[in-house]
């Protein structure tokens, strides 16, 4: 069953791209990573799914309904980020009680124990928490509410490395015992890739890839060697990125759709796999090349 179905979904702001022609579906009980640079449109997409923002075109459906103004979607989904609005003068213990009232699957014991594990007092008011602690609290709420659709938008901003690790571990463990549909956005894929089943890659408001994360790891290959040999071999192949090195060597990232026979003709070239995280960066790079090019241009001008 599909929990989310988007057809040509679009959200335009004045002069901004927002989200354009989003066509995708999310299956029930999967963990999907929404990956893109800052400003790529991740938050806009997720807020449309949560019913916060109204699409300006196309169709967005969650649990078979348009999420904007749907009580059913609101009751069965949760969107959490750094800015989630809760009264700053409310003690955390009381915040938990409010959630308990609204969410029938709320696990009070889990909430209390996780809060204690992360050394946050139930008596503390939310306004007194640091940014990292606030995100930890929102993460705990997202887990304990056990909503059929839970959306974490950059959940680990400001958290210590060890807290990040613990949070993602807690998320996986709770998912194993209570499978549900989870979306996590991040601009650091390497931090969450093992946790994910699928990945949605967004750039400039467009969904450029939606595939299992294991397939992204095999999506491309890095080929390096002397410039002439590389250039010769990559004719008629899909080049994703290219990096020139000072020694006259070239590394090219190509789509991994060539045959073994193809590979056999590449004498003297070195083939190496590209990690999912690097691949996502190559795919969302504005220009082919990279940060080095900025400095190269400088040197020669």
């Amino acid at each position, binding site marked *: 069953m599909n929990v989310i179905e988007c057809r040509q979904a679009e959200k335009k702001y004045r002069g901004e791209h927002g989200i354009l022609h989003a066509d995708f579906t999310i299956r029930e009980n999967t963990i999907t990573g929404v990956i893109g640079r800052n400003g790529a449109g991740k938050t806009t997409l997720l807020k449309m799914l949560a019913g916060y923002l109204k699409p300006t075109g196309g169709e967005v459906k969650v649990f078979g309904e348009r999420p904007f103004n749907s009580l059913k979607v609101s009751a069965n989904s949760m969107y959490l980020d750094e800015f989630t609005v809760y009264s700053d003068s409310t003690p955390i213990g009381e915040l938990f009680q409010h959630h308990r009232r609204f969410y029938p699957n709320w696990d009070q014991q889990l909430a209390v124990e996780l809060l204690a594990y992360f050394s946050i007092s139930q008596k503390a008011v939310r306004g007194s928490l640091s940014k990292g602690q606030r995100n930890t609290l929102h993460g705990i709420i997202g887990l304990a509410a056990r909503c059929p659709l839970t959306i974490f938008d950059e959940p680990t901003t400001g958290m210590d490395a060890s807290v990040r690790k613990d949070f993602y571990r807690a998320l996986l463990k709770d998912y194993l015992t209570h499978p549900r549909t989870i979306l996590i956005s991040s601009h650091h894929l390497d931090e969450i890739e*093992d946790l994910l089943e699928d990945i949605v890659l967004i750039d400039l408001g467009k969904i450029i890839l939606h595939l299992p994360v*294991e397939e992204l790891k095999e999506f491309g290959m890095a080929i390096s060697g002397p410039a002439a040999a590389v250039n010769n071999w990559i004719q008629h192949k899909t080049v994703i990125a290219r990096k020139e090195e000072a020694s006259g060597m070239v590394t090219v990232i190509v789509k991994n759709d060539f045959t073994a026979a193809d590979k056999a003709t590449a004498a003297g070239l070195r083939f190496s796999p590209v990690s999912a995280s690097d691949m996502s960066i190559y795919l969302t790079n504005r220009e082919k090349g990279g940060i080095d090019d900025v400095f190269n241009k400088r040197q020669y001008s």
Partner: protein
Amino acid sequence: MLNPDSVKPIYVQIAEWLETEILQERFKADDKMYSQYQLADQFNINPATAAKGLTILADAGILYKKRGLGMFVTEQAADQIRHRRINETLTALVSEIVEEAAHLNVGEQELIHMIQQEGKRRKGAVR
């Protein structure tokens, strides 16, 4: 046990780890294999990835499925893994060694001697 930086996809690493478990006789014929959820918990990975590792082994005839009960180890699993590793992994390694030895002008006798020395060193280390 898993190497996140490895070239190999996680699910291949899971399959290989399970094969080693069978080779070391931690699982015998008709034993129930770990579930995708146990593997996911143990290796901190998505259960779908773990399931892919189990599927590789099922496709290779090392595991079989019992409806509603999970995956079990087949009769010939250990033999099959051993044979395949000799034919594929070991053969590939030998070819690499021979190739490298040729580059370095190391003769066949010298290579065999090196292998024997390594064997002795290991036995010594075990004692």
